[in-house]
């Protein structure tokens, strides 16, 4: 059994009708990591997760889930929150959580006891005997998430877990995910909100147009773009474009340009020699959002060109 990877997939492909929704995606999720699958709407994230879980079979490619060649064999060790949330409206919150645990092999008695425990931890203890149909959307979503972790899975797969949640519940969810990670679970989640990925992910993959465009850490993703230099001269009249890198653009009294590969020193040397001086200078690392937009944008440009 492969303990290094909680999920290991290569060349996953899926076609719906004439459309190739996922086209040769590789994903390797290290055991114990929080792994994000990022991509714009319709990128193939959900289909990829569904193939990894064995809900649908890939047309091509192979995958192992917690070392099992067939995902079904590991189903009792996995927790899953689908993109389209679904609970039985007539069930009480406690029963709904216990039911989801029972589906994954947890006995009902333990499931009910843990459900109470989890609801109280999530601040929903008062709703234990409330029917799902009477809960708010956010509360129901949290109940479903608790149902996904009640059997203490080794792998937690969450498809767009933050969508539809208010900031308070988003924070609760983040805490819950980190708690699961601290317990030793591996977390694989999809999102198109970069802030969550930036805060939570140890590693991430960016999928666009059904293909994986990037795989690595958040830092490595940000590193795909050069840092941005913002420069304000003491004497703007002495600054000429020849002194600055080719991509430099004026921004009010400032100039903005990418950090050159050879570093900032040669540029500063030229500016000081010309007497432009330095009023203000900052070097900003690009955000994940900017890296994502560039990576996905490249793919969009390629598609448009094709």
């Amino acid at each position, binding site marked *: 059994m492969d303990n290094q990877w909680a999920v290991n997939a290569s060349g996953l492909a899926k076609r*719906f*009708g004439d459309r190739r929704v996922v086209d040769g995606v590789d994903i390797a999720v290290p055991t114990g990591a929080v792994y994000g699958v990022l991509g714009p709407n319709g990128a193939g994230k959900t289909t990829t997760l*569904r193939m990894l*879980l*064995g*809900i*649908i079979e890939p047309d091509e490619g192979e995958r192992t889930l917690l070392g099992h060649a067939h995902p*079904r*064999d590991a*189903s*009792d060790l*996995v927790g*899953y929150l*689908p993109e*389209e*949330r*679904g*609970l*039985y*409206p*007539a*069930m009480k919150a406690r029963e709904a959580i216990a*039911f*989801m645990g*029972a*589906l*994954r*092999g947890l006995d009902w008695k333990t499931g009910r006891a843990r459900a109470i425990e989890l609801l109280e931890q999530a601040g929903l203890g008062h709703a234990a005997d409330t029917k799902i149909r009477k809960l708010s959307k956010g509360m129901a979503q949290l109940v*479903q998430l608790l*149902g996904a972790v009640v059997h203490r899975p080794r792998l937690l797969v969450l498809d767009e877990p933050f969508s539809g949640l208010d900031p308070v519940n988003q924070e609760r969810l983040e805490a819950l995910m980190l708690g699961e990670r601290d317990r030793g679970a591996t977390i694989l989640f999809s999102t198109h909100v970069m802030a969550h990925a930036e805060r939570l992910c140890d590693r991430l993959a960016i999928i666009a147009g059904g293909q994986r465009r990037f795989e690595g850490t958040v830092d490595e993703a940000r590193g795909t773009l050069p840092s941005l230099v913002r420069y304000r001269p003491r004497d703007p009249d002495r600054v000429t474009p020849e002194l600055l890198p080719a991509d430099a653009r004026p921004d009010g009294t400032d100039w903005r340009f990418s950090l050159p590969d050879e570093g900032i020193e040669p540029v500063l040397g030229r500016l000081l020699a010309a007497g432009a001086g330095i009023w203000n200078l900052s070097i900003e690392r690009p955000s994940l959002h900017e890296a994502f937009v560039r990576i996905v944008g490249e793919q969009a440009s390629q598609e448009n060109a094709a």
Partner: protein
Amino acid sequence: MSPSRRLIRQTLTIARRDFIATVFTPIFLLFLFAPLIMVAFSTIGAMGAAQAADHGADRVKIVAIVPDAIARAFVEADTRTRTVFRRDEEPPALKTLAPARDPAAQARAAFEARDYDATAVLYGPLERPTILYGARGARAADYLAVLAGQSLVADRVGGHLPQVAAVKTPFVRQRATLGGQNQTAFLAVFGVFFLTLFLAGQVVGTMAEERSNKVIEVLAAAVPLEAVFLGKLLGMFGVAVLFVGFWGTVLGQLTSILPPSFAGMVGELSPAIGLPMFAVLFVAYFTMAYLLLGSVFLTIGAQASTMREIQMLSLPITIVQVGMFTLTLSGLSKPDSWLAVIAEVFPLSSPFAMAGMAAARDTLWPHAVALAWQALWVALFVTLGARLFRRGVLQSGSVRPFWRRKRA
């Protein structure tokens, strides 16, 4: 845990959820007492119809235009003969009239009488009487002819028919009659048909719940779809067993307070294979009929995406069930015909036909083969249903079910 044990556990988890979700609702009480409501309405209707019929029946008469001396014998013959009829089969009441000058005209006039409705009128000599009868009066005319014959005999032996003091003793047969076996076979087939007609259709819409509230994705990720399908089938079968158990108990209690003559009639319904084994086989075939038809209906219903589509399916589903029933009855009437063999082999009619066979023949091995054959088809239908559902519905929300794909 072994894969098969896990599958059983997952199946039972789904079944438990469906059973509880169905039984612990107020609507279930309505479902449970539906036969009572049906019987109550039928009884009210029947009583009304009977009352209306009785009201009209009081006025209907058969008329004998005979001399007073003969009239006594006529009335006596009528009193004796009438006892062999059941109440609902009795001929109209007898009215005797003394002959007028023109009996033929008198007979015709009887049909115009205002205080009664003559259905048949006899006049003339008893050796060759003339009987006029109106619409639906042919049997009444025959009855008048019989009375005339008996009255003639009485007249010839001194005015009264001879009395016969018969010793009547009830006798319980040791062996079932062939007629009783055939009746049992019919009742067995009808029983299985009635129960499945009433109950198997319930599974059609069960997948709609999961599809409408998106729970299907959670289920599909956690358990194989085969377990979902089989679990739903078993959950609803549990509901059916509860229903049958409840009404079986009620009817069992009712039977114990029925008159002995009825118990004697029930005793005549003796299956060839023996009552205990027949009871076991009846339960087994009901189970198989439910699972077979239920799995087909579940498969079809799972492809439907709206309540309207599910409602539309109820008619073809009923037609399929009635079709299987008809096929089985046709086979039952000619036990060695090719139609009977088809009914026994075709998976959807096999439980009905084999339940009938259990009543009519005493061989046991065909039932073992049939039950295995039917169980195989249940497994096939469940697997096929799960695959169709996975391909047609789970692949993508936008993929259409097969019938709409064909139409497009």
